[in-house]
């Protein structure tokens, strides 16, 4: 028995001593490649790289150069010698996808969010009426559809239930001819404010969307003139914040009272999580909804002056408690992370996406600001957020949306919708998706991966799937979550 034990022990010891370095080398990407004996640099023990590929839909055929791989996506192609490779993926009835990628020794080239597009997009018609425009209530199931310019032409679509219901009920006929002049929405809120006009009369309607019907409240008496900006906290919808000529009023919708001059001599304001951010002439403060507990957010007057001195008016967008964006009337974009000023002028809008990325657009180009933590990139100087222009040479960019966990940007330029890849190793591919009705807005919903738009010929409401459902990370029971959120809002309103 002892002899057998020794034999087995020494065999396994030998296997371990010899095998371990081989396994480690393999794990690190080393392979042995016999050479031709003519000083071939790509022979002997070579450190290789790999590429990880994942597509939507999965199961795409992979070609590397001319070689067809038996694996289908998602797949890892290992033991690739350093260099550049032409990679192509095909999937039946989908457009083929190709790119030239670099392979570095010991490194993994990761292409984990490749979105394959169908050869032929087949939009589905949701409502055959002829609409003029649509407005989504971001991060809610509702879309406002406008058949004409008056309030009677407005209907809502509940995307989840695929049901259309009117804005006005039969009893509200006296305002049906009012023209809709402005629409105010807030993300994650099932409320919207409509500014109406009929001859010299003006009205403001506060609308609460509840599943399959709209509750309308006339709150015109709370307005002292044409507001420049109106907003509310989705968790506290009983307070409306009305901004006009540097004065901020707080309206209480419950008892229809107004707290005039909540703050004045302002250059802008913003709301986030039961707090108001106020940009005054020489300071920026944060306060609660009662106006007490004011907190000065920037104590350095010189820095304040250099940041805010040049422009008179700003819109403030607190995205988190720590990160606030300021957009001036001239399109200058500032933020609370280094280097504070991200774009000097002409920014028309932005979209905050996953992975701490911010998409901004001007009339002719689109940029991405990376707000990651890799601040120490340039020697000893913190570089902070950096802007990369990902699309330029456009004309009339209207809207930009993040798609598939921040890997693509969908944008509308005039009446055409495009999709652009962000994470690429060379020139970014921009693919034209479809045309929409002239002067109408297309809206992409991250929640269901659908693009809602008006058909260019008929004006009908159409929807096109961009991201297949299985790729959308859905929190458990979204409807319940939404209803719970509404209940929570109602509760906080009651308080």
């Amino acid at each position, binding site marked *: *028995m002892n002899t057998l034990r020794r034999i087995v022990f020494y065999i396994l010891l030998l296997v371990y001593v010899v095998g371990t370095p081989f*396994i480690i080398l393999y794990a*690190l*990407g080393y392979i042995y490649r016999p050479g031709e004996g003519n000083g071939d640099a790509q022979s002997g023990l070579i450190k290789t790289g790999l590429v990880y590929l994942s597509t939507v839909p999965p199961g795409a055929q992979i070609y590397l150069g001319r070689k067809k791989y038996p694996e289908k996506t998602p797949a*890892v192609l290992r033991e690739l010698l350093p260099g550049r490779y032409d990679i192509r993926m095909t999937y039946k009835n989908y457009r083929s996808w190709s790119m030239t990628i670099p392979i570095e020794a010991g490194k*993994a080239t*990761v292409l984990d969010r490749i979105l394959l597009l169908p050869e032929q997009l087949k939009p589905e018609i949701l409502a055959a009426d002829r609409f003029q425009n649509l407005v989504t209530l971001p991060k809610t199931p509702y879309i406002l559809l406008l058949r004409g310019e008056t309030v009677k032409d407005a209907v809502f679509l509940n995307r989840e239930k695929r049901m259309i219901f009117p804005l006005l009920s039969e009893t509200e006929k006296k305002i049906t001819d009012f023209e809709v002049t402005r629409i105010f929405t807030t993300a994650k809120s099932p409320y919207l404010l409509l500014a109406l006009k009929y001859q010299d009369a003006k009205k403001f309607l506060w609308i609460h969307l509840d599943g399959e019907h709209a509750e309308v409240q006339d709150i015109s008496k709370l307005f002292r003139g044409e507001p420049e900006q109106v907003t509310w906290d989705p968790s506290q919808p009983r307070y409306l914040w009305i901004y006009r000529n540097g004065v901020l009023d707080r309206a209480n919708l419950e008892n229809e009272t107004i707290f005039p001059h909540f703050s004045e001599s302002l250059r802008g304001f913003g709301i986030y999580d039961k707090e108001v951010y106020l940009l005054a002439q020489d300071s920026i403060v944060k306060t609660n909804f009662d106006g007490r507990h004011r907190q000065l957010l920037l104590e350095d007057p010189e820095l304040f002056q250099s940041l805010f001195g040049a422009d008179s008016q700003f819109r403030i967008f607190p995205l988190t408690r720590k990160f606030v964006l300021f957009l001036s009337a001239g399109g200058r974009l500032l933020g609370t992370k280094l280097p504070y000023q991200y774009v000097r002028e002409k920014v028309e809008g932005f979209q905050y996406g996953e992975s701490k990325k911010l998409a901004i657009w001007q009339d002719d180009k689109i940029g991405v600001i990376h707000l990651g933590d890799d601040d120490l990139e340039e020697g000893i100087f913190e570089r902070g957020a950096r802007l990369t222009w990902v699309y330029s040479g456009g004309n009339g960019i209207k809207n930009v949306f993040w798609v598939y966990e921040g890997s693509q940007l969908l944008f509308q330029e005039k009446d055409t919708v495009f999709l652009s890849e962000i994470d690429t190793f060379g020139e970014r591919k921009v693919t034209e998706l479809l045309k929409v009705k002239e002067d109408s807005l297309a809206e992409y919903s991250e929640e269901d991966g659908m693009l809602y738009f008006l058909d260019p010929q008929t004006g009908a409401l159409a929807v096109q799937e961009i991201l297949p459902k299985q790729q959308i990370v859905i929190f458990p029971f979204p409807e319940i979550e939404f209803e719970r959120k509404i209940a929570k809002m109602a509760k906080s309103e009651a308080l």
Partner: protein
Amino acid sequence: MKYQFTRNRLNRRQAFLERFFQILPGFSSWTILLGLASLAFFKPLWAAIVVIVFDFYWLLRLFYITVFLIVAYIRLSIETSSNWESRILQLESEGEREKERLRVRNLPWWYWKNKISWWLFKRKLRLLTRHQTPMPLSKNIYHLVLVPVIREGLEILQPSVLSYLEGGFNPRQIVVVIALEERAPDSVKRDVEKLQAKFKDSFFDFLVVEHPQNLEGEESVKGANATYAAKQAKRFFEEKKIPVENIIISCFDADTVVSQHYFACLTYNFMVCPYRECASFQPIPVYHNNIWDVPGFARILEIGSSFFQLTEATHPEKLVTFSSHSMSFKALIEVDYWPIDMISDDSAIFWKAFIHFDGKYRVYPMYVTLSMDVAVGDSWWKTIKSVYRQKRRWAWGVENFPIVMRAFLRSNKISLYDKLRHGFKLFENHVAWATWPILLTVMGWLPVLFAGREFSNSVLYYNAPRITSIIFNLAALSLLITIVLSLCLLPKKKVKFSFFWRIWHALEWLAIPIVFIFFSALPALEAQTRLMFGRYMEFSVTEKKRKRKSLKRNR
């Protein structure tokens, strides 16, 4: 070497050494676990390499164990087919030996087990002749079966005592001693009295020794009770003028049911063992008494323990006594019986003897089973608690480590090789016990979980899980062999459900990673941590229950 095998009453230097070695295993286990977790967090690349190196080592170790598990199983099945009573006769009579030689020679090849068994017999005989150790005659050999009892009633004790009667050896040469704790409930005392009345005439004698509480120097441990009873038994044998050299003592748990030829096998092994007065005799413990009455996790855990012991049996140089076992009574007296202040008396008695005999004490493996109960409670949850406590008590065997290490430092007669070999094995076994299941199941994945951008863009990030999964797939081969062997070793359940239950049992093995974390690693880690902080454990009796009243003997 004269040595006080205790952690109590030490001088300053010894107390310092004792604390140092008490801290060492727990400190090492925690350092390994926290060290790898920290490495995974701060240097995931390095951690991934460490994990691969460890996983590969574990795989080869698993193969090694599996090879010897198969060898041990074959050996067990060969030895099970041996007729030990005949073997004893053949030892004592040359004529019987010759008859057997001729019989075996004429057997066809498919009786290979008998042929190998005969070959093993001849080998042992040759070894005995070479050592020129005089062999006692079986008629002069007496068995002392010592059963410590505190809470076990008639339903547990009676099947055990019955099995001694049918143990393949003349019961008139067996003395059963029930070591009864004074603090045992009255119902247990009455049961023991009934048992004594029933079996007194069946054996050479059936003694009941009541162990008084709170004797000086003693702690509430099984070893104290057993020691007190063994001392009484010594007086009994002296009165009967039976020399201690010819007495084999078996200290059994109350639920220990011996297999049919246990005492014959033990007698045979005692007779052929050179220097038998410096040896313990270790059977293979199996937990078949109530194996089908317990939850699956407890079943695979105990089969795992049996397999571990089966594999250990193939390596007698490193074998340590475990649970119920037997030894020379003379050796027990010479080493001054079991420690009376330690919980892990089963392994402590080996170390005590090993030190006393200056490293010349060894454990002699016996390929015969004795069956015990799996710890079980009234409910599933109580079973979990009971099993956990039992494993923690087993893991408390780590208390031997500091005492043994101090002895090794003091002893000049034990060879350095033996000191290193045993010291390292004792240390490594306990640290591996506490860390390996956690390293394999949890820690191995941490580098991937904690990966930052730099690591997640490396080849290693993608290759490490692949290598790990290949290693685990290869390890599944070992698991498959283990499942097959466990199916072969298990007692038959009711025939009607036999096939279903065997399939179910095979599937139970898939839970092994979780079971081993909660009932192997965590109890061991707790035991080591307690020792590290000087929070010593107290002896607790494992709860054991059986559903069936009658017990069919296994193997």
